């Protein structure tokens, strides 16, 4: 009993620590990537290539004067960033980051590089906790007692719930093909076999429509450009976190980047085979674990870069365009994907 708890605790610390490190790295990648795309240098003074810049930023933000504006609802104002961070730190616990089902540590089965490998509700947990994130944004917007914040928070909540439907329907397509809610079952189904001997059996091939809908929807769910209507610097100055400063401001920023990491990991897991890689049948135990982490890392890095790449390449939507795309574009497409997967399974086209 206590050994299981200890192994779980270590997994929580290691995986959450890795995600938090990735957040810092992504801040650097975002700034350097933006500079690269805009033909300038970006932060390059602190440490090699400016790599220590996020640490300096964090320390600076910690020591900033902790300002609470006079007109805010104090309790909710303090609660909002905490909700955002907690939710962002909870969502990734059902994602399998690597192999390791066959490994035992101190007599306890490791169950893969996944915080909660035995959780039966699987991806439902992620969707349920993930949608709580909207509370952080709405409460921040409302409690700030500021017109920009209120508009940003309202817009963002309407946007999140609009795109959540399409996202859930796209996930349903994958669950339909898998027949399980658990993400390790989703990964296991995609690994090891090939169409025509070369194309890995990733869900992206039969469900390209669902994949596109899902990627677009998670861009909206993470409030990233081209869907960052909540922040819209040019009209709302900074949206729901106008009144926030010091580490409370950083909390919103960090939860945005954590959500980005979770979203990328989810795209990889649902549609691009998770940690599986060609030729993995030859390995087992610790070598398989190490190689699976590398495979997952490469796929994850691509989608994280995609987030940065898109942000600095596309302009922002107008709000009515955003709503039209969500309700009239993505929702029918996601339903079409679901019907297609159902029919293909009934006809035996998808195994």
């Amino acid at each position, binding site marked *: 009993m206590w050994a*299981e708890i200890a192994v779980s605790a270590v997994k929580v610390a290691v995986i959450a620590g890795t995600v938090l490190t990735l957040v810092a790295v992504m801040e650097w990648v975002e700034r350097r990537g933006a500079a690269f795309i805009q033909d300038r240098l970006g932060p390059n003074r602190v440490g090699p290539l400016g790599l220590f810049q996020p640490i300096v930023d964090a320390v600076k933000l910690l020591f900033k004067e*902790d*300002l609470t504006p006079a007109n805010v609802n104090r309790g909710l104002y303090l609660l909002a960033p905490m909700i955002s961070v*907690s939710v962002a730190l909870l969502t990734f616990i059902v994602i399998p980051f690597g192999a390791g089902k066959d490994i035992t540590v101190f007599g306890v089965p490791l169950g893969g590089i996944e915080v909660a490998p035995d959780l039966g509700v699987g991806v439902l947990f992620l969707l349920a906790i993930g949608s709580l994130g909207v509370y952080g944004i709405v409460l921040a917007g409302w409690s700030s007692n500021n017109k920009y914040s209120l508009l940003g928070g309202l817009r963002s909540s*309407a946007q999140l*719930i*609009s795109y959540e439907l399409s996202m859930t329907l796209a996930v349903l397509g994958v669950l339909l093909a898998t027949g399980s809610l658990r993400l390790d079952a989703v990964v296991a189904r995609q690994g090891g076999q090939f169409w025509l001997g070369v194309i890995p059996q990733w869900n992206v091939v039969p469900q390209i429509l669902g994949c596109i809908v899902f990627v677009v929807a998670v861009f909206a769910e993470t409030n990233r450009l081209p869907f960052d209507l909540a922040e819209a610097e040019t009209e709302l100055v900074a949206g729901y976190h106008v009144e926030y400063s010091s580490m409370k401001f950083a909390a919103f920023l960090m939860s945005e980047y954590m959500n980005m990491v979770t979203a990328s990991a989810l795209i990889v897991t649902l549609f691009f085979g998770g940690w599986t890689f060609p030729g993995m049948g030859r390995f087992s135990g610790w070598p398989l674990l190490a190689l699976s982490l590398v495979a997952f890392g490469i796929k994850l890095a691509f989608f994280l870069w995609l987030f940065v790449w898109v942000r600095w390449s596309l302009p922002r939507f107008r709000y009515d365009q955003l709503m039209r795309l969500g309700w009239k574009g993505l929702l029918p497409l996601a339903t079409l994907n679901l019907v297609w997967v*159902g029919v293909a399974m009934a006809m035996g086209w998808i195994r």
Partner: protein
Amino acid sequence: MIAQYIPVVLAFAFAVTVAVAMVGLSALLGRGRFGRSRTRDTFESGMPLLDGSRKRVSVRFFVVAMVFIVFDVEVAFLFPWAVSVRGLLAEGNTTVLLDGLVFLVLLAVGYAYLWREGAFDWSRRGSQS
């Protein structure tokens, strides 16, 4: 059964600790070293504050929220169906796909009605009548 939630509880404790630590450390380390700040007014791009911000907002937000509730509840019904299709097909059940499609057709009727009513048109005025 309960054991599968042990990691969830641990992760929850970790998440709450990090969140409280962030806000708490900021309050502790950033405490008024610069004297009481005079910039505690609500920020409005430098303009003097004329009125409060708790005003009426567009009813559109309410419509979107209501439509979301309707559809989200129906999508929740699709989860048990989606998860059990594979097993039922393997057992030779032939109507399971039809069941799902009938449900989706019912959803589509509601969707078409909302579309015609203009619930998805953000910019059109007076479309609620």
